[in-house]
């Protein structure tokens, strides 16, 4: 890049972000150079306060500005129901559905031996402790329905088998707006297995 050292420094920093290559970094740097000062100040402030203003909830391990987080601290939530998700983004997706009124547990990933992720890398012990503390009636395993997510769900189910709580797995099948013609045969098969009566 033939530009100022400040531009080069910014582009070099942006390039370290995931999914950002050299060209994208240069494009973003040029955009920020021509952007209003207010945007730059807002962005710098947000980046600067990101770590200091973000905490991990000590109960569910979601990202929040306080611990316990707003969900865990809400007395209207059903504390007997725990939905286990892989990442905070998955928790946000379930919350967005508006269909769940229980609490969460964020694992921090999935069992992926090929990537060096074993059970010790996940918050499975913490989940077992929450259940052992009592008051939990059902655990919904809402890891993604792929190889790693399914294997993680089975691993947790094995681990909690003697806990006495009801263990369930999120349903799996055709997506809303999907097209049977383009779906793989496993998805179609699971949709039929998990069919519901219509009234």
């Amino acid at each position, binding site marked *: 890049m033939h530009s100022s050292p400040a531009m080069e420094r910014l582009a070099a920093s942006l390039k370290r972000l995931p999914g950002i290559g050299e060209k994208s970094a240069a494009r973003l740097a040029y955009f920020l150079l021509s952007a209003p000062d207010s945007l730059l100040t807002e962005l710098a402030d947000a980046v600067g306060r990101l770590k200091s203003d973000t905490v991990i909830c000590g109960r569910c391990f979601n990202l929040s500005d306080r611990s316990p987080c707003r969900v865990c601290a809400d007395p209207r939530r059903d504390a007997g129901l725990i939905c286990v998700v892989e990442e905070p983004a998955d928790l946000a997706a379930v919350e967005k559905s508006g269909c769940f009124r229980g609490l969460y547990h964020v694992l921090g990933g999935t069992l992926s*031996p090929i990537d060096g992720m074993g059970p010790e890398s996940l918050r499975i012990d913490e989940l077992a402790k929450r259940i052992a503390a009592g008051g939990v009636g059902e655990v919904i395993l809402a890891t993604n329905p*792929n*190889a790693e997510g399914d294997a993680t769900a089975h691993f947790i189910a094995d681990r909690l088998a003697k806990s006495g709580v009801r263990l369930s797995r999120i349903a799996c099948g055709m997506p809303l707006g999907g097209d049977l013609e383009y779906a793989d045969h496993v998805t179609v098969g699971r949709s039929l297995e998990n069919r519901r009566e219509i009234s």
Partner: protein
Amino acid sequence: MSRLVSEALLLRAVDFGESDRIVHLLTPETGRLTAIAKGARRSVKRFPGTLDLFNHLRVSVSRRRGGRAMAFLERAVLISPFLELRAVPTRYALASYLLELMDRMAPEGGAGPDTQRLFSFALSSLSALEGMAPDLRIRLLFELRALDALGLRPELRHCVRCGAEPGVRAGFYVADGGVVCSSCTVRLEGVLPVHLGTLRVLQQALDYDVDRLERLVPGAQAVVEARNLLFRFQRFHVGLELRSERFLDESLGEPVA
């Protein structure tokens, strides 16, 4: 532009950028193949439910002729997902280990009977594991067969130094990749002690069909010797600890290496 339409086994998939995935495939035509699936995480029509670990696929891959750029995965259709591998942690651990071994050691871009054989082994081993409850014995037998399919078959019948029968004081010499006879053993350092019974079981494991491996029941001493021998042999050729090894050891209740 050249195009390959082939069966493939998905060894690994890594998210790339905002919507792409990089996949490591094992095909009977090329051995290991790395390709980028553009828009794979967004498109529900091009790669529906396909780019997942253990999946047996039919793929269409294109590559610029003579180019060094990564190949493009244009289309993938699911043949079998081997779903039962996910249902039992020891199965998942062993299948992951075998895939990682292939991902690291399979030849890339090679063609011929060896890649056909490796692909057949990979498919038949995943299929066989779906019905098994793996323990240390099963792990060792499959590990030996995987190394064999990768072209790393240890010599178990004759001394790798002089060609003689092994004899009762035989050993295994990792650096030469096979058994050494009683006479040669005394002239070498670092030879692993191994009983003839262990060598016999390992030789049988090389001869059996993969789906019949479960029927082999080596004694406790043979399991210990085979574990030691294969651990050193694998580490000598792979050169490092595989990432999936720790989880596999823990799942099987083995002390972590």
